[in-house]
């Protein structure tokens, strides 16, 4: 009874936050968007007075009046003809020979052209469900084809990414639904890792700052021992090499210390600014 009361008054559900971290949920980006699909450029620039492939070769159109040319241009004939030109443009970037239209690179180019056209449609009509489905399917298919191409011909894969201006990201190990609990756990882990790293760096700095004075002391002590041994005519145990080694170490430390102090000064200046 009491427990029920307390739980109803004080809500204790959810993750207890031990560290002060603010979690920001990444905003939802539809899969057809450029940043998700990996396209780095939009539709290629095709002039509105371009003529579709079917009419481009006819002699009649070449010496036809302006008004007729306008009627037969993409602007007038519609989106379908325009999309065909987009696909042709992209295929022409990677074509091996004139009759090449079913190799991996041309297939990927054609699909890319189709995707970019549909992305344009989706920007204008975001509620077009049919286009949304199609573009999703095409993006997945292209990713699969790129994956296979990568497996059997890596050099061509990289060349194709450059030519078509695409980005390839491998699949993650697992796809999972984003949750607050899991994200907070990861952030806390990162925070702990940061603390650990900082502490280690501080301790390292402390030890390194003590190195210089110690080396100086060591050098003096070695020189003193040597002079005493010579004076008292005892066998000399400290060689020239030992002293030289310590001197070198001291010199190295001095150079490192200077670099460090300069960096610290720079930081301070930036903070002051």
């Amino acid at each position: 009874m009491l427990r029920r009361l307390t739980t109803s008054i004080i809500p204790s559900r959810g993750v207890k936050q031990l560290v002060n971290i603010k979690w920001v949920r990444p905003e939802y980006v539809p899969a057809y968007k450029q940043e998700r699909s990996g396209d780095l450029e939009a539709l290629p620039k095709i002039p509105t007075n371009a003529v579709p492939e079917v009419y481009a070769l006819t002699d009649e159109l070449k010496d036809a009046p302006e008004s007729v040319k306008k009627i037969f241009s993409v602007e007038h004939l519609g989106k379908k003809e325009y999309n065909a030109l987009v696909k042709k443009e992209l295929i022409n970037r990677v074509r091996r020979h004139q009759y090449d239209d079913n190799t991996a690179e041309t297939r990927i180019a054609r699909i890319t052209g189709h995707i970019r056209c549909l992305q344009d449609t989706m920007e204008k009509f975001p509620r077009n469900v049919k286009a949304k489905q199609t573009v999703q399917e095409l993006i997945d298919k292209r990713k699969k084809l790129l994956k296979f191409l990568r497996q059997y011909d890596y050099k061509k894969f990289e060349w194709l990414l450059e030519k078509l201006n695409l980005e390839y990201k491998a699949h993650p190990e697992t796809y999972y639904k984003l949750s607050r609990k899991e994200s907070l756990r990861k952030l806390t882990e990162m925070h702990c890792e940061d603390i650990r790293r900082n502490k280690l760096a501080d301790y390292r700095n402390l030890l390194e700052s003590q190195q210089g004075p110690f080396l100086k002391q060591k050098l003096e002590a070695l020189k003193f021992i040597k002079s005493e041994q010579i004076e008292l005519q005892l066998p000399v145990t400290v060689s020239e090499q030992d002293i030289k080694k310590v001197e070198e170490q001291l010199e190295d430390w001095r150079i490192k210390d200077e670099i460090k102090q300069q960096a610290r000064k720079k930081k301070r200046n930036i903070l002051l600014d």
Partner: protein
Amino acid sequence: MSRNIAEAARKFLLLGQCVPTVKQNATKIRVKRLELDENLLMYFRKDEFYYCHDPDQKCKTGDIVLIQSLPRKLTKLITHEVKEVVYPFGDITDPITNKKVAKERYREDIEKEAEIYGKLKSGFDYNKALPRGWQDGKKDFTSKPTYTKFHVFDENDPYAI
């Protein structure tokens, strides 16, 4: 007896594939094994992962490599070293004829076909091709594992999906 042999073999040489990893000074190698399920009397795949010492960055993601156990562990994680890259990823050579292969065909044949049809400048030329890795981190994000984006950081990580 067989276990001893298996353990000895594990110390000698292993063949595995390089997989993407976040660690900067080690490569992660996946060794595929088969494990017998005694109830079903069937073999099931079981992967083992080894972190390997590779100072010259010999192997890249996807390469099939030979690894050998180090006489002493280098760190808590790194137990093996990369001996040799046996099959580079996506650059296959036919072992019998020593010719380069793309999928089921020789590259020579592909080139020849293009020449017969009338080669265009836009096509890919194997002779001019740069070695693998020039797009790494620019357009090809496969050297590190990708993950689902879970937070909005100041810097945008390309490996977050």
